[in-house]
């Protein structure tokens, strides 16, 4: 009896100890990050400001994870899960611990859109195209209002941590199901964590869109891969399709009623997706169609249903967007080179350090895709073709047929990377029993941590939000009458977090010429505004200065050229300044 108690104790003491070590390392890393100096963030981003202790804790946490993963007698999911959650908190929570304001101006803008629905109970599709897909904003507004908050700003800081944790749950189920190996699933998740540098997990519709996409794919691959095809109507015997033998684990066996309920759930997920984000439902259509074509999905009508729902929402729910913008939607169809140039070519510019950072990002992205490709080929050669993972990893590339703006390739990477990581993991697991392979995998994972911090937070010098900048915008709102024209020289400004629809938010009419210091562009800041009686204010901040200098072509030292021109003679009167922000009232001379 006593021996039994001791052995039972021993079975939970070791995992509990390992979990406690992970928790201790996370706390240590978070404390270290909070002692970092925000002022040290330079052209290489957050990596310059995070103290060495932070990286030490992240490294030890990685080792703790891999020691457990490589255990011969089966890893303990609680230990792996604790280390994984800890790593998410460390890597995605680091800016939240270090910086005094939530990062990323676009997230502040989305907080403003949320506030619009919270305050007025309606969206404003004519003010901004993003209001045509208000699912995320209205849901966030509901959570904000029900939680007694007056603004969504408090949600911004920890949104990336929550979003990444939400990604990992369906991704684990997908990995377990498609690789058939718990080790490969955990390794794939870890790889995705350190490879996912694109930063699409902030307070934004695409982050929740990605969660919904992964949830739908998880349900499809867990319940609907094998067996006869399920159609809406019976088909003649000679045309009846049979699914290929699926790789990984077989489908979970469930009864007819639960299967019908799951199909209803898939349609509900699709409905939510169509209302939330323009691109994510298209990814679901492509992903599910790829599964059907590769005979890995019994629901052969699901891609069509998802497509009809997507088109239905665009036709009815997003009318203000497409009326008058058909050229924007269909004009880029087939121009693949334009897509690549928009997303890649135009980004390799700016200062030398910034250019080298962009190249590292491109190489990092290319390395993932190359490794995934090699893994797929090797698995195929060993007669273990990972067809489902390959189909899901390739499907997002089909969106290159449509020009989705400068972030098109980022989105392709986001939707393809999880499955690429699982492919690599499945390949690595083949040789994982060898000690040498284990050492290489753990070493590579350790080396990837600083690479992740560099690529993910390399733009932090202008993507961080400085308290003085927020203070300046609050002053601007207090002095500018509603309806005024508010002008920002570049996009990097944390505004519209309040009064998102009460002012006209603009850029200089000739933004490039303005930054080059063209006197004509400076003197006619906004051309001929719609309301000629409205006041006009120009805001310039440190983040804008750094963004223009580091990231925009031909804009190094732009503020040095422009500042001397912002004089009363040219129509500019300085009405407010602090060390990081200047506000000018402008009246055309």
């Amino acid at each position, binding site marked *: 009896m006593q021996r039994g108690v001791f052995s039972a104790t021993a079975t939970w003491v070791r995992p509990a100890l390992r979990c406690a070590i992970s928790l201790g390392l996370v706390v240590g890393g978070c404390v270290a990050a909070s002692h970092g100096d925000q002022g040290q963030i330079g052209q290489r981003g957050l990596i310059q400001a995070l103290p060495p202790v932070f990286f030490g804790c992240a490294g030890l946490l990685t080792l703790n994870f891999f020691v457990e993963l490589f255990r011969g007698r089966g890893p303990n999911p609680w230990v792996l899960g604790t280390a994984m959650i800890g790593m998410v908190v460390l890597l995605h929570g680091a800016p939240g611990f270090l910086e005094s304001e939530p990062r990323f101006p676009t997230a502040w803008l989305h907080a403003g859109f949320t506030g619009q629905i919270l305050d007025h*109970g309606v969206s404003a599709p004519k003010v901004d195209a993003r209001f045509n897909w208000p699912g995320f904003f209205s849901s966030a507004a509901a959570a904000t209002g029900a939680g007694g908050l007056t603004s969504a700003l408090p949600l911004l800081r920890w949104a990336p941590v929550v979003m990444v944790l939400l990604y990992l749950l369906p991704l684990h189920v997908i990995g377990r199901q498609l690789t058939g190996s718990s080790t490969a699933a955990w390794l794939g998740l870890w790889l995705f964590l350190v490879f996912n540098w694109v930063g699409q997990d902030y307070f934004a519709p695409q982050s929740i869109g990605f969660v919904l996409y992964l949830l739908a794919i998880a*349900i499809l691959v867990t319940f609907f891969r094998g067996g006869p095809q399920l159609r809406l109507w019976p088909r003649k015997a000679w045309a009846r399709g049979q699914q290929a033998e699926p790789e990984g684990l077989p489908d979970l066996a*469930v009864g007819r009623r*639960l299967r019908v309920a799951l199909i209803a759930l898939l349609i509900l997920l699709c409905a939510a997706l169509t209302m*939330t984000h323009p691109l994510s439902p298209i990814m679901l259509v492509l992903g599910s169609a790829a599964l059907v074509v590769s005979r890995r999905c019994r629901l052969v009508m699901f891609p069509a249903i998802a497509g009809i729902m997507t088109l239905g929402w665009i036709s009815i729910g997003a009318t203000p967007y497409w009326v008058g913008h058909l050229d924007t939607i269909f004009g880029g169809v087939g121009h693949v080179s334009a897509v690549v140039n928009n997303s890649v070519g135009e980004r390799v510019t700016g200062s030398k350090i910034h250019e080298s950072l962009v190249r590292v990002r491109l190489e990092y992205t290319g390395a993932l895709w190359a490794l995934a490709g090699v893994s797929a080929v090797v698995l195929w050669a060993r007669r273990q073709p990972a067809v489902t993972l390959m189909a899901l990893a390739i499907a997002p590339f089909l969106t290159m047929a449509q020009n989705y703006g400068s972030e098109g390739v980022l989105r392709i990477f986001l939707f393809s990377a999880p499955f690429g990581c699982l492919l690599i993991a499945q390949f690595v697991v083949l040789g994982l029993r060898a000690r040498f392979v284990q050492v290489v995998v753990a070493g590579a994972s350790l080396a990837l941590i600083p690479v992740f911090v560099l690529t993910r937070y390399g733009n932090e010098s202008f993507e961080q939000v400085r308290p003085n900048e927020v203070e300046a915008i609050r002053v601007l709102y207090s002095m500018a009458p509603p309806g005024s024209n508010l002008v920002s020289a570049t996009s990097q400004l944390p505004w519209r977090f309040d009064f998102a629809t009460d002012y006209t938010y603009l850029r200089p009419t000739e933004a490039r010429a303005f930054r080059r210091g063209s006197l004509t562009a400076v003197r006619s800041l906004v051309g001929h505004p719609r309301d000629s009686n409205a006041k006009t204010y120009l805001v310039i901040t440190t983040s804008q200065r750094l963004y223009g200098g580091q990231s925009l072509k031909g804009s190094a030292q732009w503020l040095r050229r422009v500042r001397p021109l912002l004089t009363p003679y040219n129509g500019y009167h300085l009405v407010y300044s602090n060390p990081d922000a200047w506000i000018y009232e402008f009246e055309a001379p």
Partner: protein
Amino acid sequence: MTGLNQWRTLVGRASSRVPANRPPRWLHAAILCWSGASAVVAFLPHGAGGVPRAVNAIVFLMFGPGCALALGLRRRVPFPVVATISLGASLPVLVVSSQLLLILRIWSPWGVTALVGLVTVGLLLVPVRLEES
């Protein structure tokens, strides 16, 4: 040690009264109370309740219906799959409820909370007998 054994026996007896596939009643009751309390708290004015109210609202709206669904599914499929299905039900319920009220132009935070609460209660009270006998 004797006390612990007695406690274990009591718990064992209490558990044995519940059929294998049916979740304990106290969990049902707890989720029902949580739904009701969340809907009521959503009526309170801004600022009342502080951080606990904010955290509860976010957790309830994001995971409330999922918790109800998870109770029904927990013995039918493995835990990670239950969690995935539950999350896959919770988030769309929030988005679609919120969107529905927005389209009808009757959107309000407590309206959305009440709707999500109703779905949660529905998933609890409507017998979840999806599995064929």
